[in-house]
């Protein structure tokens, strides 16, 4: 499949409105405004577009659930991109900001919203500047604002910058943050489609998801669905990082396999190294082993293989990687990012991290392994949002596949695989 979303990323002026207009830009918005909002929702449903943020929920359904009786309604575009290993939305916003703006406008039209807020993570200041310039240009040419293209439809798009909180990527926490509070999740139900931003119906959609909408409107649902396997249509952006020769964002049909992505697209593991394991969808998903590399990188196939496609962040681990260290590294992340609202997650991630650090330092005991499993079981499913499940996954998945490494650490009283790329001594104070 030739790149579609990233077709022009190599062009110097791809981010400008002039370039975008020369390449059929905003024609999908023009088409959309001639249809009824419900027709757009039906079209997106027919395309089978699934949310690209991580859950893979059908976007058309999400839009249909938006309560059409209450006003105003909102779109909150999730540009918080914080899942470790993920850097695809960054590329889209940086090189193709008008595609996102067009997606926001069509989305607003479909659900009857008049405002879209793009919630961008605080660390993307350089991207925010590009987006805001693009938004200004779109207003100037009448693609945003009042009476867009003479249709009578009004739509505003604003960028809202976060300030460093992984949890802000959870949809209800994102809404809380937009309301000027701590990014902590809400109890669900009610879902944002009914009670969202400022208590009003809101659709929360990922950047890549909204970028797919103009394609569907312009070229049709059937064309879109046929790009990938059944129920996994459309182009997909994959972020390949870790121990590969050419880390980067690669666009492919979801027919592609993990092996092709790692070896053909990203150049494979470095010379003299062998592949040890793969995290296929960001740090929150179970790892897959080398014998599962021929799995298709689609939502359904990866799930069938025992993991999740998540945000399509493929982190490749070679044979120098200590799996206890890996779990410790990721639990440091989850411990730091736990928002503190639910006790099992707030306290449990700290306990898990402490135990993992103890084992990694060679001071663990065999009973610690049962303790890790027990604490994990007391976090998963016992929190308001999916963070709890995500946080225990690195522990559970490494214990499942690499229990022998944990045992070796405990028996030998030291890390058994201290790679040269790691710290000479334990660093970090928090």
């Amino acid at each position: 499949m030739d790149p579609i979303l990233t077709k022009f990323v190599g062009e110097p002026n791809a981010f400008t409105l002039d370039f975008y207009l020369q390449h059929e830009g905003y024609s999908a918005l023009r088409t959309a405004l001639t249809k009824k909002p419900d027709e757009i929702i039906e079209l997106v449903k027919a395309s089978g577009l699934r949310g690209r943020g991580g859950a893979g929920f059908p976007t058309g359904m999400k839009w249909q659930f938006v309560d059409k009786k209450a006003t105003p309604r909102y779109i909150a575009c999730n540009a918080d991109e914080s899942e470790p290993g993920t850097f695809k939305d960054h590329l889209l916003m940086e090189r193709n900001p008008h595609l996102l703006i067009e997606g926001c406008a069509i989305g607003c039209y479909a659900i009857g919203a008049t405002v879209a807020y793009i919630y961008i993570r605080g660390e993307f200041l350089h991207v925010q500047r590009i987006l805001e310039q693009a938004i200004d240009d779109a207003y100037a040419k009448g693609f945003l604002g009042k009476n867009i293209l003479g249709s009578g439809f009004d739509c505003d798009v604003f960028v809202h910058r976060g300030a460093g909180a992984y949890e802000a990527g959870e949809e209800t926490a994102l809404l809380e943050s937009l309301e000027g509070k701590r990014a902590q999740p809400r109890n669900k139900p009610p879902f944002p489609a009914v009670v969202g931003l400022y208590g009003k119906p809101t659709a929360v959609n990922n950047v890549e998801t909204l970028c797919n909408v103009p394609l569907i409107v312009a070229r049709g649902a059937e064309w879109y669905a046929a790009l990938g396997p059944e129920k996994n249509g459309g182009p997909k952006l994959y972020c390949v990082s870790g121990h590969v020769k050419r880390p980067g964002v690669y666009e492919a049909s979801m027919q592609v396999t993990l092996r092709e992505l790692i070896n053909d697209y990203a150049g494979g593991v470095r010379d003299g190294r062998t592949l040890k394991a793969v995290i296929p969808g960001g740090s929150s998903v179970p790892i897959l082993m080398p014998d599962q590399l021929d799995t298709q990188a689609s939502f359904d196939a990866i799930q069938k293989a025992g993991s999740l496609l998540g945000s399509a962040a493929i982190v490749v681990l070679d044979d120098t990687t200590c799996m206890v260290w890996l779990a410790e590294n990721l639990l440091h992340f989850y411990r730091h990012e736990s928002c503190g609202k639910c006790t099992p997650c707030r306290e449990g991630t700290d306990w898990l991290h402490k135990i993992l650090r103890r084992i990694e330092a060679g001071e663990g005991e065999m009973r610690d392994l049962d303790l890790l499993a027990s604490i994990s079981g007391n976090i998963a499913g016992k929190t308001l949002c999916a963070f709890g499940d995500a946080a225990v996954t690195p522990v559970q998945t490494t214990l499942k596949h690499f229990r022998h490494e944990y045992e070796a650490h405990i028996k030998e009283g030291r890390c058994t695989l201290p790679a040269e790329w790691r710290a000479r001594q334990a660093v970090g104070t928090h």
Partner: protein
Amino acid sequence: MSFHPKMSYDATFHKSARVLGDEGAPFTYTAENRARLDEIVKRYPADRRRSAVLPALYLVQSQQGYITASAMRHVAEALEMTAADVEDVVSYYSMFNRRPVGRFVLNVCRTLSCALNGAERVTEEICAKLSIKPGETDPSGTFTLAEVECLGACDRAPVVMVNDAWHENLRPEQVGKWLDDLRTKGEAAVSGCHHVVERNTR
């Protein structure tokens, strides 16, 4: 008195790790920043001024480098919220400095993809070169070192965010020269995001 024989009910028992904000000098926005805030507030419904708290705090930080208690009260007044609610927000988000920081804040990404490519070694080299630990500022007030979680630039690991800009692919062996360059050349020594660089150089 204590309800537990082995736990005395004294000051050490309920010791909170909460750090009260520095009171700081009396704070008011410059006229320019106040005007910018008034523009930003218009993006949100009229009765939802509080939504602008993050941008309002960024303006404080750009004006005086870190966020003091008097600044929090000023923000609270401007946005019609309580000072406690502002502190609630400031203490939650990691990008707000609550203490004075050096001219360059070196935020080293420590999460998986960067760590797999040597981020821990980068931190070690910075610590050794500047004789500071993460969280500290060097005596000259030039550098503050912080370890941060995934910055979303995993294809250019290891990444260090210097104030608001990215420095990509920083190898541990380059750290010494890089810090010297930062001292002498300032922000010109920061590579920037490769997307921005590629666009500007074509």
